[in-house]
């Protein structure tokens, strides 16, 4: 890579961005709580046991964030990506949902 340097010190990064990302973590926590309350109310699986591809993908990404390795954003996007190589026979829909089903080993 031939990037440019970041002008901020680590302390300045925290000063500038901590509150914004504190709020984002709380949003994720509240989303999972909301999902679990809905599961309890309607009798479905909770966020730890659900088969919903998107919730599983989100939780797998949270594990990745804490692995201490660099390039987290790239690796999260790769985790959620379709890794097949051939074009599909036909497009039956226009939309994308945001994540592919995870291989069992990554669940």
């Amino acid at each position: 890579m031939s990037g440019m340097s970041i002008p901020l010190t680590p302390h300045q990064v925290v000063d500038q961005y901590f509150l914004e990302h504190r709020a984002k973590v709380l949003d994720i926590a509240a989303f999972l709580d909301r999902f679990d309350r809905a599961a309890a109310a309607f009798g479905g699986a909770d966020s730890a046991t659900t088969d919903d591809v998107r919730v599983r993908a989100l939780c797998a990404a949270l594990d990745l964030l804490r692995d201490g390795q660099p390039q987290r954003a790239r690796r999260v996007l790769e985790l959620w990506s379709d890794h097949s190589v051939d074009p599909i026979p036909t497009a039956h829909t226009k939309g994308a949902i945001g994540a592919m089903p995870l291989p069992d080993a990554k669940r």
Partner: protein
Amino acid sequence: MYIDPHIHMVSRTTDDYQRMAAAGCVAITEPAFWAGYDRSCAQGFVDYFGQLTDTEPKRAAQFGIKHHTWLCINPKESEDIGLAREVLAEIPKFLDRPSVLGIGEIGLNKNSRNELVVLEEHIALAKSRGLLILVHTPHLEDKMKGTRIILDAIKAHGVDPARVLIDHVEEHTVRMVLDRGFWAGMTLYPDTKCTPQRATDIFEMHGTDRLWINSAADWGISDPLAVPKCREEMRRRGHLEALIHKVSFQNPQTFLSQSPNFRLR
């Protein structure tokens, strides 16, 4: 002063032109795209191409903004190859209009076989006419796979990658695009693409050569002032004004000036 090289003004109000001009926008380029519904016939695209090449340049000029455009049938409507070929047959009738820069935004949506066929026919048209190409890469989980297929298809046609902009790159696709000699665009779009913060991170990690930013503002929740907001994010971190000017003005100017139709005045 900045250029927004990807924005869909047909979906925006005239107030947005006014606000963009006040924020320093001097030029925009508008790729043909999906209107949010499938058009029923090729004539619908003919009308749209007229809007892009006649109506929008006049609307932008009221605010001192130079408007340019790219023509195609977008990948979301490419599954119907019959319709796509009817539209492709109409495109050459518009290519000599003075604000047309090239073919775009072509690419893939769900990475299907028909989408790839239509993409390749657009690439062939661009190559035969010596036109620049602006490429849409797929959304979300389809982006990485689709970007690889697109890069391979363009290379297979022998198109010079320096005349192709691959748009909507993110952390997992930017390197493969730049390493193969293409230009790359980062789209500042809520929820599904880059934020100003992440785009600035990508500049810090991958440099500022052959890389630009755009809003891709359209009929969805989006922000026609996203480019100046990213400039402000770079400024907030202490990046030099020369770098901010490079990514938001000089880089688009350099790429787009490969077309004789690109003018700032």
